[in-house]
C-alpha cells in the first residue's frame, strides 16, 4: 500500500514512515533529543525534498517530545525555569545563526568550514561523553562510593554575575551560562538544520551541573519548544510542511517516545550518557565519512515539482 503526499508530491509506504517515526520517537523518549539529525537524512534518502524532510522531522520531534514531556512533568523531572531560559536563548540563537549563515554563504568556502568544525565538535563531545561515563560506570562497579555528582560552587556558572534561583535544580547560578548555551544551540540549529538536543544534554550536565534526573526532562522541554517553532516557521515561510507525512511519522513517533521513556527510566545517568555519547560519535563518524569517502550520490537534484 502507498499513500500520496500532497506537498512532497510523491507516494510513500505508510508502514515504513510509521516505523521510522517509532525508532526516532524512541530515541527522543530515552535521551530527550529531537532526532532531526537522523530523520532528515533518512527521509531525503527515500527521495523526499529536503525542505519537506526538515519540516516533517521538526513536527515529529514536537510530537514525540510532547508525548514524553507529560510523563517527565508528572515525575517532576523538568526544570521549567531552566528550560524556558535556554529556549529564550535558543530563539535569539536561531536569529543570530540565520544572519551568520547568510554571511558565511557570501564568503564562499563557508559550508566547508562549518561542516569540518561540526564534525570535530561532535567527535570530541561524543568521545569525552563516552570516556567520562565509562569511567563513572567502572568506578561504581568497583564498589567505590556511587559516582558523586560534582556540585562545586566556584565554577563558571557560579562566578558570573546576574544570579538566578532555579529551585527545581536546587541551583543558584548566573543566568549567563544557560542563556549562552541556548544561544549556542540555536546558532547550530540555524546553521546545521538540526535541533541540537544532543549538544544541550552534555552542556546541562557538565556546565550547569544540573541533577541527572532533571537533564532529560529539561532537554525534552527545550526540544518541544524549538521543534514547535520550527514546524510553524517551515510551514508559514516555505510552505514545506506536509501534514500527511507528518501524521504518518507522528503515529509511530508518539508511541516510540512512550517506549523510550520507559527504557530511559531503567537506565542510570552515566549509562544514559554513555549511550548518548555513542550516538553522538556515530553521527560524527557519519559526517566524517561524508567528508572523506566518495559520496554515494554525487549529484543532487531539485524535486520534480520544482517548487521545493
Amino acid at each position, binding site marked *: 500500500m502507498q*499513500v500520496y503526499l*500532497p*506537498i512532497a508530491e510523491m507516494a510513500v509506504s505508510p508502514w515504513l514512515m510509521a516505523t521510522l517515526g517509532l525508532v526516532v520517537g524512541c530515541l527522543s523518549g530515552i535521551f530527550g533529543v529531537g532526532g532531526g539529525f537522523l530523520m532528515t537524512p533518512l527521509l531525503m534518502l527515500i527521495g523526499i525534498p529536503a525542505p519537506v524532510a526538515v519540516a516533517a522531522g521538526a513536527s515529529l520531534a514536537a510530537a514525540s517530545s510532547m508525548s514524553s514531556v507529560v510523563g517527565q512533568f508528572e515525575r517532576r523531572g523538568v526544570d521549567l525555569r531552566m528550560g524556558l531560559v535556554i529556549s529564550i536563548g535558543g530563539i535569539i540563537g536561531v536569529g543570530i545563526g540565520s544572519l551568520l549563515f547568510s554571511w558565511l554563504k557570501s564568503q564562499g*568556502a563557508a559550508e*566547508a568550514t562549518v561542516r569540518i568544525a561540526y564534525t570535530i565538535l561532535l567527535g570530541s563531545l561524543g568521545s569525552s561523553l563516552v570516556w567520562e561515563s565509562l569511567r563513572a560506570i567502572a568506578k561504581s562497579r568497583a564498589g567505590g562510593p556511587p559516582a558523586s555528582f560534582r556540585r562545586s560552587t566556584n565554577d563558571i556558572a557560579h562566578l558570573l554575575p546576574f544570579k538566578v534561583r532555579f529551585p527545581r535544580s536546587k541551583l543558584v547560578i548566573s543566568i549567563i551560562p544557560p542563556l549562552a548555551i541556548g544561544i549556542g544551540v540555536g546558532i547550530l540549529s540555524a546553521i546545521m538544520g538540526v535541533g541540537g538536543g544532543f549538544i544541550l544534554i552534555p552542556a546541562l550536565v557538565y556546565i550547569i551541573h544540573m541533577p541527572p534526573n532533571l537533564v532529560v526532562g529539561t532537554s525534552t522541554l527545550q526540544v518541544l519548544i524549538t521543534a514547535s517553532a520550527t514546524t510553524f*516557521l517551515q510551514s508559514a515561510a516555505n*510552505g514545506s510542511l506536509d501534514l500527511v507525512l507528518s501524521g504518518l511519522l507522528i503515529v509511530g513517533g*508518539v508511541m516510540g517516545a512512550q517506549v523510550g521513556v520507559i527504557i530511559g527510566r531503567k537506565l542510570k545517568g552515566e549509562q544514559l550518557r554513555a549511550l548518548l555519547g555513542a550516538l553522538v560519535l556515530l553521527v560524527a563518524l557519519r559526517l566524517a565519512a561524508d567528508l572523506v569517502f566518495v559520496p554515494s550520490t554525487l*549529484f543532487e537534484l531539485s524535486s520534480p515539482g520544482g*517548487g521545493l
Partner: protein
Amino acid sequence: MMARFSLWMVLLLGLIIGPAAQAQSTQVSAALIDDAVLVTSSFTGAKVTIFGSVRAGSVGRTDIVVAVRGPDRPAWIAQRKRTAGLWIGKDQINFAAAPTFFGVASARPLEQIAPSDTLSLYGLRPKGQLDIAKASADSPLAETLIDAFVAQRQREKLYVDDPNGVKLLKGGLFRADIQMPDRTPPGLYTAKVMVFRNGRPAQSTLTTLVVTKVGAERALFEFARDHAVLHGLAGVLLALIAGLSAAGIVRRFAPG
C-alpha cells in the same frame, strides 16, 4: 465522457477519410482514453493511453512516435566536489525551465526511426527541452551536469523512452501507452503524436491532458498554499495533540 466520444469520432473519421486521403498525403488523428489524471491519496502513478489512426502511402515504412510532456518548472542540479581531499562544496547549474515529465513511446528504438538531429529538432529528446539559466550557461561543467540531470530523471522514471510503447493494430490503428510515476507533478500535459515516413517527419497532431489533485489531496494542498500561517498552526497542534493523547493512552493502560 467527452474523451470517450471524441475517441470514437477519431477512429470513425480515420476509417472514412483514410482511404481517400491515402493517395495525397499522410493523415493522422489521435485521442486520449482519459484526458484527466486524478491524483488521489492512493495515487501511485498513471498510464496515459492514446488511440489513433494513421493513413499513409504503402511505399516505405511508417513509424508512430508519441511524446507526453509535463509542465515546465525551474530546476537545478549540483555535483559534489572534492577540495584538498575532502568532499566539501559543490558545483551547481540552474535551469530556467525543464519538463517535469517527458515520456516518449514508439514501436521500435528511436535511433532506428530517424537520425538524432531530427529527433532533437522535433522535440523528442529530453536533453533538447532543457532551458539552462543564463548565469549557468557558461559553466565548464554544464555539459556533464545536463547529462547527469537527464540520467537521474530517467532513473526516477520521469523521463522515459519506451521503444515498445506503441502497438500497431490492424487497419492503420495504433495504441500508445505511457507510464507516469507517482512523482509526476500536477499541471497541463501535452501529448504529441508524430508520424515518420522513411525517417522523415510527415505529420503530427497535438492534444492535452490535465493531471490534477482531487479530494483530500487537493484540499490539503490548497490549505497549505492559501493559508500558510493557519496550516503551520494546524501542524503544530496536530503534533502536540497527538503527543498528549499518546501519553494519556499509555497512562490509562500502563499506569506507573
